């Protein structure tokens, strides 16, 4: 192999690459926020006694988990505007699609967390006169969410990786800026290697954070 590596393309264009990083973090953070909200609401609905809540939640989770995120992204960008009658920017489409896909996965996590709570505690809550909603708020969710810290950060990592798909809509994220750079500087190996390293570092830091945070929220033994 006589390829001469030249990573100067990365250093000379760091501002451009940084702008991509910021977009990636923005899209991912917003998606995680909405995915979390959706995850809690749909997850609670998923275990509801009322079929009117449980069945739609089941359908939504199934539909979103059994379609590729890339297809959802394209669908939100090209089809949703026709159905709702207003245009969706690429960034909005990316946030919506990632929120939906992340929300569906988190809903399953929330459901598992809720079902993991001993039914005796729920009965104890009922016998002191707490309503179902209060039982959820004071007894079930605080414990379920504690157990979900690690899966939650894992979802953040998944969303961060999925956010690279948004580049195909023209969202100027990490992947998009790397593609743009490689096609103008003719240094694809350096730019894409650096891109991989960036995702690796970001995701590794988040994994580490996940372990720290779960340990912090663990119940006293």
């Amino acid at each position: 192999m006589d390829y001469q590596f030249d990573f100067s393309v990365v250093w000379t264009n760091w501002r451009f690459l940084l702008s991509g990083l910021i977009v990636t973090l923005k899209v991912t953070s917003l998606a995680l926020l909405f995915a979390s909200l959706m995850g809690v609401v749909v997850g609670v609905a998923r275990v509801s006694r009322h079929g009117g809540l449980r069945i739609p939640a089941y359908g939504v989770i199934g539909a979103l988990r059994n379609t590729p995120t890339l297809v959802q992204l394209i669908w939100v960008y090209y089809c949703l505007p026709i159905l709702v009658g207003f245009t969706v920017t690429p960034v909005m489409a990316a946030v919506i699609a990632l929120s939906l896909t992340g929300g569906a996965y988190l809903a399953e996590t929330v459901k598992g967390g809720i079902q993991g709570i001993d039914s005796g505690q729920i009965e104890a809550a009922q016998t002191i006169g707490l309503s179902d909603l209060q039982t959820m708020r004071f007894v079930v969710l605080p414990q379920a969410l504690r157990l979900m810290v690690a899966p939650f950060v894992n979802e953040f990592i998944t969303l961060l990786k999925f956010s690279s798909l948004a580049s195909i809509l023209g969202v100027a994220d990490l992947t998009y800026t790397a593609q743009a750079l490689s096609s103008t500087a003719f240094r694809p190996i350096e730019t894409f290697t650096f891109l991989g390293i960036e995702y690796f570092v970001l995701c590794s830091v988040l994994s580490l954070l996940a372990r720290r945070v779960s340990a912090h929220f663990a119940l006293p033994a």
Partner: protein
Amino acid sequence: MNHAADQPMIRFQGVEKTFGSTAVLKGVSLDVMPGRTTVLIGASGSGKTTLLRCANGLERADRGRIFVAGEPMGLHSPDGSFAPLPARELQRRRAAMGMVFQRFNLFPHMTALQNVMLGPREVRKLSAKAAEAVAQEQLARVGLAAKAHSYPSQLSGGQQQRVAIARSLAMAPKVVMFDEPTSALDPELVGEVLLAIRRLVDDGLTMVIVTHEMEFARQVASDVVFLESGRVLEHGPPEQIFRHPTHGRTREFLQRVIGAGAASAGVPE
């Protein structure tokens, strides 16, 4: 408490409950009188626990009537069937009825104090300060003032059960029901829980206790009820049930749990 002393605190009338094809309660009628300690005894599967659970709506009776402090615990149809109360009404009633479980069922993410405060704060809607004062008072009543800030996992089984008792007392209940409160405890921890319950007997709290501790039952009960296969077979003061049971089945049961000959010869003092 504005409940008339001569009216039953809990009245079961012909209560029936079936799980699948197993009839657990076959028409139980029983009055639990205020200010008294009613102890339910009987073999496993005789329906004691189910009867308690029907009283506060954790189980729904199939037929029959249940009144707590004179108010029906459900909507009775003329054909004897039973519809549950609306959720809000059920919550209001449950708040007035304490329940202590075999397995404590404390909330593990809360300290002892927070466990006891939750009901006063969120159901009785007391201020945080007042709720804490109530909780401290009830923890002191079961001898655990010093453990207020411990988590359940840091407490022994006996201490956890006393916190659970304090939690139900903090709701200022009209009646407290105990479902085998010492069955899940190591033998050396049973005494402290029974002592805490005995203090409540002295305070004149209305209680229904399901227990296998016959000596304790004999000492604290005002009334002893013997259930057998979903029916009340015998009901009377402890001296009568323990010394002169009228039913052969009661005698057999007592002999089995206390030891041969004890029932007919009387429980040793």
